[in-house]
């Protein structure tokens, strides 16, 4: 059973920094989330699904939802290293197709050196 067309990517954002020694990891997640939402023309309150991997601090999506002030119906944290975020896109599409959430925020993140 195909879910083609049941979900689409509406916003994307790449953080302009390369060496962000003056920011925390959680803060970088928040800034890319904000940039993607602005690109999509959506507000933080629209987000009801959240995906992140092991690079997110604390307990992952639980800690990030609290940090970002999100009210979620769905969250997931599949971690397959650098490919986690591709899997998150698939899982987000499945969750949206199943009606588990309407707007999924997926924090795609590469480890930044903080020296």
């Amino acid at each position, binding site marked *: 059973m195909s879910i083609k067309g049941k979900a689409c990517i509406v916003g994307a954002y790449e953080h302009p920094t390369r060496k962000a020694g003056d920011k925390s990891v959680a803060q970088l997640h*928040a800034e890319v989330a904000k940039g993607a939402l602005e690109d999509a023309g959506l507000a933080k309150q629209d987000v009801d699904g959240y995906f992140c991997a092991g690079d997110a601090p604390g307990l992952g999506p639980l800690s990030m939802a609290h940090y*970002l002030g999100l009210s979620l119906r769905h969250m997931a944290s599949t971690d397959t290293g650098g490919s986690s975020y591709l899997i998150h896109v698939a899982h987000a599409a499945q969750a949206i197709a199943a009606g588990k959430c309407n707007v999924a925020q997926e924090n795609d993140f590469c480890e930044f050196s903080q020296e």
Partner: protein
Amino acid sequence: MNPSQDRKIPAPAVNPENQPYFDAAAEGKLLIKKCISCGEFHHYPRALCPFCFSDQTEWRDAKGTGSIYTHSVLRRGVPVPYCIAYVTLDEGVNVLTNIVDCDLDAVKIGMKVRVVFKPTDGGPPVPMFTPV
């Protein structure tokens, strides 16, 4: 009577985002963040407001007083009994903290408290609260 005892507190995770909070704690000051865009206070401190997502957040001196919202005294499986609590500051934000320097059996919801600063093991001091 169950008097609280000082316990070893692990050093907090200090990062560029929360550094000013711990620098202030080292000087015996309690800071919270206020969002210039929407006017809300929040704790723990974030760079982006958790209510409106604005990056216009600024540090403010907190009065250092509040009341206990809820608490729990841990006695089993810990070297030294201690009281974990949420304190609602006068500014309206909730702080996850410990209630210290008191009789642990006498801690009650609604009790008025004020901030004190306790040393950590290898890190900056952290704010905790004691009954006034």
